[in-house]
């Protein structure tokens, strides 16, 4: 039985038996290479659910607004960490969520597929092992190597297989070992301060403060975000570069120890700000300094909400 068939059967059963009120999953969107979030509450509609390399959204983002209802959610390994994070922070109850874990080797990057098909419209996309077969509307068939088509962040993923799934959808996939530190972080850490500043300025210069990054992030669930506070007015939403930097620096600090590296923000950004670099840096530091990785264990609190008596303070005079 294919993973998709398993998913649909389980979803229909969960809904039919009343175990959950809604299944949050993916359905086909506009085009063969687009999946979109789906909220299924009727077991008869479970057939719309899909799971493949196009399923890029982190659906844990919707759990906060569904709090209190019994929800089943389709999560990849990265998304599952967000679910665990929400449980650890008391935002949802473990008993209220059924985790439908989907092993994943990466989601595709639309820019890569567009480059491959030279903009040709894709009528059908079929995964055959490590190859993606794209059948264009023109009739032409283009083959792509999945490793080259997936988002850059997915290439460094160390959580391809879910660990807390109530139901495992599909077979476990290979988990190659990944470098401890992202090579990009190492590269930037080695730059002199002036060069690091230039890079930061350049990236921030692209940002238009649309807040797509914040909106798709499951860890950004505050009803009263600091950006919207007027008393006090923490932040101005102006085009002054320093205000853009204020937003990103503060959001990064708020995410420290809570960001799971799912990449939703990176994919949502309409102007390709290199958010991954800065989030990777902080995840790295958290691992280094606090020996902690977000979203793996629902019992362990995030590092900035606790402390140890022997925390290092050699940087403090």
């Amino acid at each position: 039985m294919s993973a998709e068939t398993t998913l649909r059967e389980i979803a229909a059963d969960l809904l039919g038996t009343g175990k959950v009120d809604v299944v949050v999953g993916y359905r086909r969107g506009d085009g063969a290479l687009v999946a979109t979030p789906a909220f299924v509450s009727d077991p008869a509609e479970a057939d719309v659910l899909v799971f493949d390399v196009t399923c890029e959204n982190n659906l844990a983002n919707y759990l906060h607004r569904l709090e209190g209802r019994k929800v089943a959610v389709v999560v990849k390994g990265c998304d599952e960490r967000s679910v665990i994070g929400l449980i650890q922070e008391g935002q949802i109850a473990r008993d209220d969520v059924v985790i439908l874990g989907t092993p994943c080797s990466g989601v595709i990057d639309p820019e890569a597929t567009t480059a491959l098909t030279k903009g040709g419209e894709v009528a059908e996309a079929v995964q055959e092992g490590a190859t993606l077969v794209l059948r264009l509307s023109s009739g032409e068939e283009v083959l792509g190597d999945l490793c080259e088509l997936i988002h850059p962040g997915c290439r460094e993923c160390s959580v391809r297989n879910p660990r807390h799934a109530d139901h495992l959808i599909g077979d476990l996939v290979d988990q190659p070992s990944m470098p401890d530190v992202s090579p990009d972080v190492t590269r930037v850490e080695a730059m002199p301060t002036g060069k690091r500043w230039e890079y930061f300025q350049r990236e921030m210069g692209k940002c238009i403060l649309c807040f797509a990054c914040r909106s798709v992030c499951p860890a950004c669930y505050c009803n009263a975000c600091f950006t919207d506070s007027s008393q006090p007015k923490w932040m101005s939403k102006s085009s002054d570069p320093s205000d853009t930097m204020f937003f990103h620096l503060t959001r990064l600090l708020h995410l420290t120890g809570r960001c799971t590296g799912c990449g939703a923000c990176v994919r949502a950004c309409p102007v390709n700000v290199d958010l991954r670099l800065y989030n990777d840096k902080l995840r790295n530091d958290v691992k280094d300094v606090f020996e902690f990785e977000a979203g793996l264990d629902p019992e362990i609190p995030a590092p900035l909400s606790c402390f140890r008596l022997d925390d290092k303070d050699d940087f403090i005079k």
Partner: protein
Amino acid sequence: MTASEPQVAETPEWEPKIVAFLCNWCSYAGADLAGVSRIQYPANVRVIRVPCSGRVNPMFILRALQQGVDGVLVSGCHPGDCHYLTGNYHARRRFAVLKRLLEFCGIEEGRVQFSWVSASEGQKFADVVTDVTEKIHQLGPATRLVKHLWDVPSSVLAALETDES
């Protein structure tokens, strides 16, 4: 400084402006002791008294840099001595993260510094301020996070003169 940065005049008369967030119970008292003891130290620091180093929101530090201060010092009680028991432990973690992030983004090392100064350490307070001021002198005026939207163009300033100014 990189080629693309605005050239801020570092005149011989330039003196750094440094903001110091001092916790009320230890560091502020320590600063007070330095004064009472007539210990000489550079006058570049403007003190903002907070109840605890744990009260210091990283946004305060960012805002200070936006306002154009050349350096920020945050000082609190030694670990174990916090008047509120655990405030400085949380602050310690927060500052560790903030310092690494700021440096990664290209804010010069030494612009933002931290210290533990107790109420009896008047001399230490003076030493810390001297150290920090010297470091900021070396770094030069801060330009990187300064918010220029607050600048009024010189062509407009004349029109804003009031009788009171």
